[in-house]
């Protein structure tokens, strides 16, 4: 028999593993992704792409394509430049950062292999692709800037001559004293790390339908994105359409991982094509197009050293990171954020004080690079933890021991890292102790030694980390970028006593709507089944930052919580008037107004709603029932909500083949209050699998001429 816990209270949903209400619908094949949407008079776009990484566009001959069956429009860079203002992916607080202006389609030059040059719109995608093959583009190939060192060389061709060089951003952090500490340190370890390019490879590729109606005017965009408000703002400003006339709808999304919150040229072009044609135009990136146009991530070369005293106490770090981002900085979140997080997260879990770092963000003729899941974290964590292990080896200390000696003590908060991050409360030591017990570390080490004698090679690794979550306005807002750090929710009670919650965070398949439903159910006091959560439509939900950087639960969840409390107060005010009682002597539970002390049922919520909506005449004079509330919430104080954790890995190496067999992974993460353990487990499991992919399998590789050499899943 199981003991009764707090979770057995009525309406107790927070902390409970409830399944996702939308899972059944998606499993039943009733998902509605952008690709599924068919609009009347809808046309389909395809693009002719550059075969060269860097080339001048000499001439475009599209006569044959225009005459091809079913073709409604062939558009080139100049056509769209007449409608769409250019965009520049910089942020003010990255001092000295520069990036060239971008247009939907290029006018005189291509800057990466795979860049869309000409748009073809036809009655079907197949006809559009057939016609695209008939477009003849004459290029004059230019030397490609591929390598990050060559890009910075004195003789390097400059991709955007107006910027003067291929350097997008140069950042420095220096606490002082680093040279002296290294000079006097008992141990110095040093390594060079190469991190290849990765990309998201979402199950659902990028997809968009733009539908421009000149008669209102009104632009409706069905967009597979995680940030509809950001795109509403962008489409309105760059196409000169009043914001209120732009509607962005993000329906079911098949994975995003940060990849679907950047401005893509093809997507921006589709809006222009729809304006030109006054018809809906759909574009769905196929898998090969995804590889050459979705953002890539990582691509860092880090040279780092760490100093320690004779006992293995870490004293200082000195880091140089060079990262290649493509030919411009991504819009609107820029391509500097990853490098910025790399050189600020270095050494973040540890107590040392002296830190120096140099970050160079370099333009090159490759696909644009920007934020993708765990922005910068794997790079900073790998470098730091490898150096820590090297210090452990030098000082003959165990990998757990060296970490307990150097991690920031759990009672030292609040404190700041030498890189400028302010930590409110972390728990490295508690996590370390927990994982050690979970994995039976001592047992594994003994087994490892015994098996080695039999020729079986097993490895054990651990890594502590700090995680950046829930950015406040101190990041994008201060940087001058119109990306909200707040979220908004509208909750209303229907005449039947059901609840609708319209919230600005978005559902990408990870369970946002589930946790919002849990939070509202618990704090309003109604059954979860009676709550409908609506997301992803700028026309119906309040403005907000939506979903990125772990902010769905932290900011969106808090928004829902506060909104639910506010609505509950409104309901209890009406209930008190009806029951001739005091609001603070009443509470809500399972859709009933109950006596706060005895929990006895007094009146059903549905009855309150019925009276409020249909028989307000029976209420005391002056009673105006407010059964809908709108509420916004933005984080204050700390720029980010930092969290922390530790992971451990146990694997076996086949020394004859080099194949690695993963035996087990352990993860201890300080999540704070867990809203839904099932969904947290899914997130962690997915993150670990994605990390294993990055560590073992994934890399977007380029040839010397700037060609992506593995642009399909079969390569």
């Amino acid at each position: 028999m199981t003991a009764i816990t707090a979770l057995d209270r009525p309406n107790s949903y927070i902390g409970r593993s409830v399944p996702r209400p939308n899972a059944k619908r998606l499993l039943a094949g009733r998902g509605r992704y952008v690709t599924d949407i068919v609009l009347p008079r809808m046309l389909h776009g395809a693009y002719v792409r550059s075969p060269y990484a860097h080339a001048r566009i000499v001439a475009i001959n599209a006569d044959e394509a225009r005459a091809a069956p079913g073709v409604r429009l062939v558009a080139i860079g100049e056509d769209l430049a007449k409608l769409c203002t250019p965009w520049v992916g910089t942020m003010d607080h990255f001092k000295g950062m520069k990036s060239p202006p971008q247009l939907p389609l290029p006018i005189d030059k291509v800057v990466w292999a795979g860049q869309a040059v000409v748009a073809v719109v036809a009655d079907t995608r197949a006809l559009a692709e057939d016609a695209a093959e008939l477009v003849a583009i004459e290029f004059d190939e230019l030397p490609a800037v591929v390598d990050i060192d060559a890009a910075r060389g004195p003789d390097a061709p400059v991709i955007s001559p107006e910027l003067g060089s291929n350097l997008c951003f140069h950042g420095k952090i220096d606490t002082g004293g680093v040279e002296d500490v290294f000079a006097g340190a008992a141990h110095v370890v040093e390594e060079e790390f190469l991190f290849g390019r990765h990309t998201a490879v979402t199950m659902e590729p990028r997809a968009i339908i733009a539908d421009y109606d000149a008669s209102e005017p009104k632009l409706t965009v069905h967009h597979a994105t995680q940030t509809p408000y950001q795109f509403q703002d962008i489409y309105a400003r760059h196409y000169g359409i009043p914001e209120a006339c732009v509607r962005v709808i993000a329906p079911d999304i098949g994975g995003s991982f940060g990849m679907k919150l950047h401005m893509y040229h093809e997507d921006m072009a589709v809006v222009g094509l729809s304006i030109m044609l006054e018809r809906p135009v759909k574009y769905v990136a196929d898998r090969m197009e995804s590889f050459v146009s979705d953002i890539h991530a990582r691509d860092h070369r880090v040279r780092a050293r760490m100093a320690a005293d004779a006992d293995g106490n870490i004293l200082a770090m000195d880091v140089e990171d060079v990262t290649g981002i493509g030919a411009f900085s991504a819009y609107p979140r820029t391509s500097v954020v990853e490098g910025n997080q790399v050189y600020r997260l270095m050494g973040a879990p540890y107590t040392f004080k002296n830190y120096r770092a140099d970050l160079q963000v370099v333009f090159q003729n490759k696909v644009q690079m920007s934020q993708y899941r765990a922005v910068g974290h794997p790079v900073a964590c790998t470098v730091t933890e490898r150096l820590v292990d090297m210090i452990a080896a030098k000082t003959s200390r165990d990998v757990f021991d060296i970490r307990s000696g150097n991690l920031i003590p759990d009672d030292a908060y609040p404190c700041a890292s030498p890189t400028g991050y302010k930590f409110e409360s972390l728990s490295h030591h508690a996590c370390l102790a927990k994982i050690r017990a979970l994995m039976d570390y001592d047992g594994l080490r003994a087994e490892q030694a015994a098996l080695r004698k039999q020729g079986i090679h097993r490895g054990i690794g651990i890594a502590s980390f700090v995680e950046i979550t829930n950015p406040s306005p101190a990041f994008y807002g201060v940087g001058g970028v119109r990306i909200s750090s707040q979220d908004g929710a509208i909750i209303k009670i229907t005449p039947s006593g059901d609840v609708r919650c319209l919230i600005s965070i978005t559902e990408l398949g990870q369970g946002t709507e589930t946790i919002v439903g849990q939070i509202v159910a618990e704090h309003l006091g109604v059954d979860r089944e009676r709550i409908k959560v609506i997301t992803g439509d700028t026309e119906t939900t309040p403005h907000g930052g939506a979903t990125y950087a772990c902010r769905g639960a932290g900011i969106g969840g808090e928004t829902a919580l506060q909104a639910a409390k506010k609505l509950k107060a409104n309901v209890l005010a009406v209930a008190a008037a009806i029951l001739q009682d005091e609001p603070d002597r009443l509470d809500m539970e399972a859709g009933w107004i109950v006596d706060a002390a005895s929990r006895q049922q007094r009146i059903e919520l549905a009855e309150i709603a019925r009276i409020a909506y249909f028989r307000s005449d029976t209420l005391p004079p002056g009673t105006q029932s407010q059964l809908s509330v709108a509420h916004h919430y933005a984080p204050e104080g700390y720029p980010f909500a930092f969290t922390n954790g530790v992971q451990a890995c146990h694997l076996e190496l086949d020394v004859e083949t080099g194949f690695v067999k993963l035996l087990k992974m352990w993860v201890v993460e300080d999540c704070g209050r867990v809203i839904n353990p099932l969904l947290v487990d899914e997130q962690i499991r997915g993150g670990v699998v994605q990390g294993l992919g990055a560590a073992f399998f994934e890399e977007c590789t380029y040839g010397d001429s700037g060609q992506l050499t593995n642009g399909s899943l079969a390569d």
Partner: protein
Amino acid sequence: MEALDAYEQAGSDASYIAGGQSLVPALALRLQAPDVLIDIAHIPDLRGIELKGNWLRIGALTRHAEVLAHPLIRQHAPLYSDAAPHVAHPAIRNKGTLGGSIAHADPASEFPAMTLALGAELEIANRNGTRRVAADAFFVDLFQTAIEPGELLVAIHVPVVNANHRWAFHELARRRGDYALVGCGILADVIDGAIAQIRIVFFSVGNTPVRAAKAEHALIGRVIDADAIAAAQAAVIHDLDPPEDENVPPAMRRQLARVVLGRLLGDIARQAP
């Protein structure tokens, strides 16, 4: 046959389609753009699995999933059964056909290599009738077989294994279902403990499935012991000429082939006499 006539009428720009697991991706990638697709998925003559004396006839339309589970294949052509779980993923195995895989002749595919290891014969139809081609003469070059334009692979005829046969299959792939870096199937005829005949076939090592003739030769007449395995491993290096590959250089493929061969021969040695 109607399908052959349809090809003739379409001129040269036609393709037969059955499971579509190789052709459809090629169409999607616009690597192929035939004017006419001839659907052969419903031709009864291309179906069925039956034992005919010492030969097992497997219809070309037999799905990978059927190959995986069919008792006659398990009993008489077991290398196909052993290889089948490594062929792609269940969704692809439900659609893809054995004949399609063999006719496509992807050098990284399991079934063409096992066809060669089993010493099968391929029954090919044309408008004049049918002919049978031994697997040793069937795989000509990269994606090229003895099938002439317009001809159709009808069935695979496999000499059934007997009590003297030992066999083993293994592949090294970075992920289950992924193309193997190196794979191998071995069929050995062991008489009085010694190897009387042996067929060692590698895949993912060249333009076609590759018989390791020098390794085979090193084993004929020998008991499979550590010395024999070492001799075969030394020889196999000279059997293989893997292509240049940025991620998997030829020396690495040869090393992996050496390891796989050693492990498979060890398996065969351990099989009950």
